[in-house]
Structures are given as structure tokens and as C-alpha cells.
């Protein structure tokens, strides 16, 4: 290997890239983290902060196992980060709810879970369907319109913005070179090392890990990889700080440790992160008030829209290049849930120079060709 500036260049300073870079630094790698500027299209600033298990894996049983692995690793991951930085990302796993506002919604929920659990090789994560009175025992403030819910004891949440800050703080402390405003224009492989060209000059590294979200679609082919993406816009409504009243995360509504209530989970076909559809915020608000009528008078102080990182089938992509050894790609929607895996499982694989097929073979982008052929 040539005398590169870095052992590994991680492209993408969001949660996937930062968690991976941290994991690599823990393995003793010299790491550069290349990021875009302040107005980057950044899912990590607009995500919903759930560490979520229920309903993951319909269509790809391995994804359920991968998710549960990360969920189980999260407490240790958070503790290590706190030890290193003094910052508490407030990971909690009290179990989580998916509320239904009609019998039809509840039935749809039950059907989905049944199909999920009937898949061969699925890990059992004990999701159950509860009726109104069972839900009300744990969520006393639900409205009458809530007919029931699915509940999974493995679900949890964190403070994802603090996670973002904590990872960057830890990276800084570990000497990872953070390079903002380094949008990667081109990647080439010369003499056994990768050259990443940016407007600020080239960065040379022995290995490269692409964690650039939807931009992996553009970057992956430069190193013989592929990342077929299908971005979509999500919007979040955020309230003022309230005294603690909600002790479990709901898939569309959660109270943060700071007290604010986040309401979200919309999906629109759009790649414009600046835009905002008021009617979508209105729908989120309307459902939130039906779920928790006490919220009616609470003030909304912010809305947010962000572009979800979404592969074409919704499942993660982890691959290493056959034509460009040392190049890896990481793509996934659930950068918070899977952060523990990226830091503790995937990063060490990249440090060793090869992905562990036992763990991540189901997430190769080759699956897209299989489907096309079939």
C-alpha cells in the first residue's frame, strides 16, 4: 500500500458515516471523515430518533435479525460514548407503540405483523396487539379514538441530535480528521490507494467507505459498487418543551428527554429538502391530537423536512467492491437504530479489510439483480 494520508476515508458526515468513522478509529485506523457544508441535504438532522424494531424485516427476514442485534448493542454503545465524551445520548428501551385510530388500521397492523412473523428464519421479537384498555394502562393520556396498538418491548429511542454531536465530539477526541465542505467529486484508485477529489484538494486513503446517504447512488459506481436509491421526503412537527407525560415512544410521536414532542413519519415523493407541505404537517398534527387530545393547546415551535435515505427496496446495502478492493458502501434508512451495528460490527470489518459474509451477505446490492432476473 502506498503512503496514504489515511487508512480509511469515510465519505459522509451524518450518523452512518460518523458511527463508522468512530468504530474505525477505535480499531486504530487513521481516519478522514469527508463531509459537505452547512446546508447539506442531511437526513441526520431531520430523523425521528427511534431505535426501532417492530415491523422491520417484512420481505427480508435477515433485516429483522440485524435490527435486533443493533438494538441489543445500543445500551453498551451509548455507555461507551458517554465514557468517552461525558455526553448522554439518553438511550431508553421501554418498549414502543404503533397506535391505530380505526379498526381498519389495527387490522392492517395485525396482518403486517403476522406476515412478518410467518417468514422463515425470522427472529422473534415479541410484538403483540393490544386493545384500547391495555394500551391505556401504559399510555393513560390516549384519546378515545385509539382503538388499539401494536407493542414491542425491544423498541426504544435516543436523543439523535445529541448522538450526532456526541459522535463528532468523540471523533474529534480520537483524532479523526473531520473535513467539512469536502464534497467528493470523483474517486479513483491508483497504485493501491484511493484518490478522492474535492474542491479543497485531493484526499488519499488506503480504503474508502461510502456513507453518503442518497449520494451513494452517484459515488458507488466510481468504485465498482452500486447503490440504487429511492429518496423520499419526511416532515416532522416539533412542540415546545413540556413536562414529562409520555414514557414510551410511539412510532409517530415521542417526547424527547428535553421535553419537546416530535410528531412525524410522513412520506412524500420529493427530493427538495427546503420545501414543506403544510397539509402534511396538518395531518400529522390532526392525528397527534386524536391520539393524545391533551396536546391540542400545545405550541408547535418548529417543523422540519428532510430527505430520507432509502434504498429501492427499503433494506440496507452493505457491500465491498470486487473491482476496487478496499472500497465499501453503507446505505440504510435507519441510521439511528443501526448506529451500534455500524460502529461495533461493520467498522471492524472494514478495518480488517473484508465484510463478514455470515452477517451481511443478505444486504449485498446483488439482490437487486436477482429480482430483475426472476
Amino acid at each position, binding site marked *: 500500500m502506498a503512503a496514504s494520508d489515511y487508512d480509511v476515508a469515510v465519505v459522509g458526515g451524518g450518523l452512518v458515516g460518523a458511527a463508522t468513522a468512530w468504530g474505525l478509529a477505535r480499531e486504530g485506523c487513521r481516519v478522514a471523515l469527508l463531509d459537505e457544508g452547512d446546508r447539506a441535504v442531511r437526513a*441526520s438532522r431531520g430523523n425521528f430518533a427511534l431505535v426501532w424494531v417492530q415491523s422491520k424485516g417484512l420481505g427480508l427476514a435477515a433485516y429483522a435479525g440485524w435490527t435486533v442485534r443493533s438494538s441489543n448493542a445500543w445500551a453498551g454503545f451509548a455507555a461507551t460514548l458517554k465514557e468517552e465524551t461525558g455526553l448522554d445520548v439518553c438511550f431508553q428501551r421501554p418498549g414502543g407503540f404503533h397506535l391505530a385510530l380505526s379498526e381498519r388500521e389495527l387490522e392492517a397492523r395485525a396482518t403486517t405483523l403476522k406476515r412478518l412473523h410467518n417468514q422463515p428464519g425470522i427472529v422473534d421479537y415479541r410484538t403483540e396487539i393490544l386493545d384500547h384498555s391495555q394500551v391505556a394502562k401504559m399510555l393513560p393520556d390516549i384519546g378515545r379514538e385509539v382503538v388499539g396498538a401494536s407493542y414491542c418491548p425491544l423498541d426504544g429511542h435516543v436523543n439523535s441530535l445529541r448522538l450526532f454531536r456526541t459522535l463528532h465530539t468523540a471523533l474529534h477526541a480520537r483524532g479523526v480528521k*473531520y473535513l467539512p465542505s469536502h464534497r467528493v467529486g470523483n474517486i479513483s484508485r491508483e497504485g493501491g490507494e484511493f484518490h478522492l477529489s474535492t474542491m479543497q484538494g485531493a484526499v488519499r486513503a488506503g480504503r474508502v467507505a461510502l456513507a453518503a446517504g442518497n449520494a451513494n447512488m452517484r459515488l458507488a459506481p466510481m468504485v465498482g459498487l452500486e447503490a440504487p436509491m429511492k429518496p423520499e421526503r419526511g416532515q416532522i412537527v416539533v412542540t415546545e418543551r413540556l413536562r414529562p407525560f409520555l414514557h414510551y415512544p410511539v412510532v409517530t410521536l415521542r417526547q424527547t428527554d428535553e421535553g419537546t414532542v416530535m410528531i412525524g413519519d410522513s412520506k412524500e415523493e420529493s427530493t427538495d429538502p427546503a420545501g414543506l407541505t403544510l397539509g*402534511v404537517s396538518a395531518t400529522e398534527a390532526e392525528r397527534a391530537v386524536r391520539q393524545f387530545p391533551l396536546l*391540542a393547546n400545545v405550541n408547535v415551535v418548529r417543523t422540519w423536512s428532510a430527505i430520507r435515505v432509502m434504498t429501492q427496496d427499503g433494506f440496507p446495502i452493505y457491500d465491498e467492491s470486487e473491482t476496487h478492493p478496499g472500497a465499501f458502501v453503507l446505505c440504510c434508512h435507519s441510521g439511528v437504530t443501526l448506529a451500534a451495528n455500524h460502529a461495533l460490527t461493520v467498522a471492524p470489518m472494514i478495518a480488517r479489510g473484508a465484510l463478514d459474509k455470515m452477517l451481511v451477505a443478505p444486504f449485498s446490492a446483488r439482490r437487486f439483480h436477482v429480482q430483475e432476473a426472476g
Partner: protein
Amino acid sequence: MTEASNFASSYDLVVIGGGPAGLAAAALASRAGASTVLFDENPDIGGQIYRGITSTPIKSHAVLGEDYWAGAALAAEAKASGALIVTGATVWSLDPSRLVGVSVAGKARMIQAQRVIIATGSLERPFPLPGWTLPGVMTAGAAQTALKAHGLVPDGRVLLAGCGPLLWLLAAQLLRAGTKIEAILDTTPRSNWLRALPHLPDFLLSSYWSKGLALLREVKAKVPVIPIQRLSAHGEGKLQHVEYRSSGKDYRRRVDMLLLHQGVVPNVNLASAAGVAHRWNERQLCLEPVLDVDFGSSVPGIAVAGDGAGIAGGAAAAERGRIAAIAAVHALRPSASVPDPQSVRQRLQREELGRGFLDTLYRPADAFRLPEGETIVCRCEEVTAKQIHDMTAMGCEGPNQMKAFLRCGMGPCQGRLCGLTVTELIAAGRHARPADVGYYRLRPPVKPITLAELASLPISEAERKAVER
């Protein structure tokens, strides 16, 4: 009182803000036959400069001065014009298709406008010094509002601190109302005088010159003026004393009220959330919208008039409102009769004369714009200057990433009291220009509304499907 259900669902012109720009714009457009509604958030029209103009308990004209009472004609003109004037109406959303979200008495409505004139004026530049969040520390503008709208004057030992024309005006008004001011702590850097000299000829031609000089004389005859280079406020639970440095010596002084001012800056939140392009004004050290000669913005059909277009004062604001309204009427009803825009432009030019001198002379010192250590920058989320410095050193390049990391600008004021400070602190830390650092990305609602209000808005089938799955 007008309720949200009582106005139409569309208007030719929606004017946002009932200060001089908004009042003049609404009056002109309505007289020219455009269906016009003016929304103002306050209980009464007048904006900040003419605050309480139709209701002030201050009856003696001498206290507030003739410039204030000029607002009465403007208010009367707007009221007589036929424009619908709705007070207590908070506009919290505006989009590029000119759909206006407004709330009145807890009820939200969406109003479609053919044209929009944003006349939301200015707010006082952040003055982030140690202890500025203590009860007993207020802006000079707040004291002026208390006086104009409510006939209230500060009680006890009162200090004024800062720089800028408004500080001197407030001092004069308080003195005329019989208030004792212990001292004025003048933060104007001495070096500013030299820099301002080239702008002096224009200033001597402007109306500010004679009025300003008379004001200075009036105040200096009654109040000691102390030039200072450093200032902090202290107290347990409320302001008890200030510490300041003057000519190399440190002083401590017991005080009950500290009124701060270092100029005003455009209130950009609504225009910015509507997608209007903004740029950094290096002379005024603030963000301002990019506008054409008619105050039209980068978003078709949306104009920004008044001090929101760049600071120029009340009289200029009214002329700007008229120019924007003439352009709106031209677009809506080309045959309507409107005043000659050239004469309005000439009056505006006269009013804008002299700004260069004032902006340069009263450019606040770095020490009062770029705080350090534990001084609070974001009052809502209690984020300190040290935290911003540290994150900048870690490579955080801009205010949006800073917001994600530290929550600065995430509270109910939505960055209005920290945005400029955060941008300037990052710029200083990066040795970059504020123009390159940028500003918070702002989205509706630009003022808080309740979830119930948001939930009451019209929802299309596609919008519902984006959430219900």
C-alpha cells in the same frame, strides 16, 4: 374584534405588519381599488415606531415628539382607506404561492393573496453580554413601548447602555416624561468617528443632522454620558449591579434597570421562510432581503418594504411601503390611478440620506457582538458562547449544523435573538466572512401556533395519504 372566520379567503393584497410601511402600503393600494387586508400581531396598529398611536395614554405631544405624532395621519389614512385592518393577527406562514397562514384569537386560516407586502420591520440587534437574561435588563425598545403604549416609565436606578439614534431618542423621551436616568454607558468605539467622517457631507444634508444634534444636547445636559469598552450585568435572580470598564478602569454600580440598545436589524424570519433570497449587509452587519427597485423580492408577487428591507427609519419605511404598493397595484390593475412613483422615490432618497454616517458611527464594537465564555447566546435554549466556540473549533461550519449540535435557535423565538450572533461567532472562529457562513434555514410556522390550529388546516387527499398508511 375581527375573527378568523370573518375575512375573505382571498385578497388582491395582503399586507403583513401595521407599522409605517404597512399602513402606507395598505392605504395606497386600497384607495386604488385593490382588495386589501392588513394583519398586525399587536393589539393596535402603529408598529414599533408609532406604537400606541391611536391609543397611547401619553397626551402631551412634547414627551414623544413630533416625529412620533406624524404616525397619527398615517394611521388615520389607512383606517379611512377601506382596507381591512386586523390586529391581534399573527401571520405564521407564507409560501412562494402566496398562501398566507394567519391566526386570530386562537383560530388559524389560510388566505390566498395575489400580492404580498411583508412589512414586519426590524428588531433590536442582539446585545449578548454577561447577565443580559436577568430580570431588570430589557431592550431600550421595550422601555419605549412601555412608555408609548402604556404610559409606563422605568422606576428606581436606571441605566441606558449601547449606541445608536434610538438610545438617545429614548433617553430624551424618558427625561421629558420626568424619569431620572443615572447615566448613559456609551459603547460607540472612538475609532468609529474617523471611519464615519467620509459619510459626513451626506449626513449634514439629511434631516437626522439637526434633529440628532438637538437630541444629543438635550440628553447630555441632564445625564452623564460615560464611554465604556466592557459591560456585564449581575444579580441574584434579578439585576442588582453592573460592572463596566471606562478608559482602562473598572467600575461597579448598583442599578435596578439596564436598558440595552445597539441598533436595529431587519426581522427576516417570515420572508426567509417564504423562500425570499437574503444577503449579508457588511455595513449594517445583518441579513437583508435581495430586492429590486420596487422592493420586489426573489419570489414573484412578494415584496418586502419598511425596515425589513434594510434599516432606514420610519419616514423612509412609509415611502418604501408606497413604492411597493404602487408596484402591486400596477400588476393587479394596470389602469388604476396611483401617485407618481418618481416623487415618492425622491422623498425616499432624501430620507435614506445620512444612513451611511449613522451605520458607520454606530457600528457596534466586536466586544458587544462577539461574546465569550459563559455568556448566553441563545436565550431560549441557554446555549453559551463557549459552546459555540468549541463546536466551531471541532469543525462545525455553519448555523444549521450548530443548531443540530447545540439546539441554538430551536426555541420559541426561532433564532431571532441569537441568529446574527451565531453566524458572526462561527465566522470569527473560522476566519470566514459571515456572508459565507450563512444563516439558519427557517420554516413555517415562524411564530408558534397550537397543534389544534395546525390540525384545523385544509388537508388534501394526497397530503393525508402521505401520513396515513
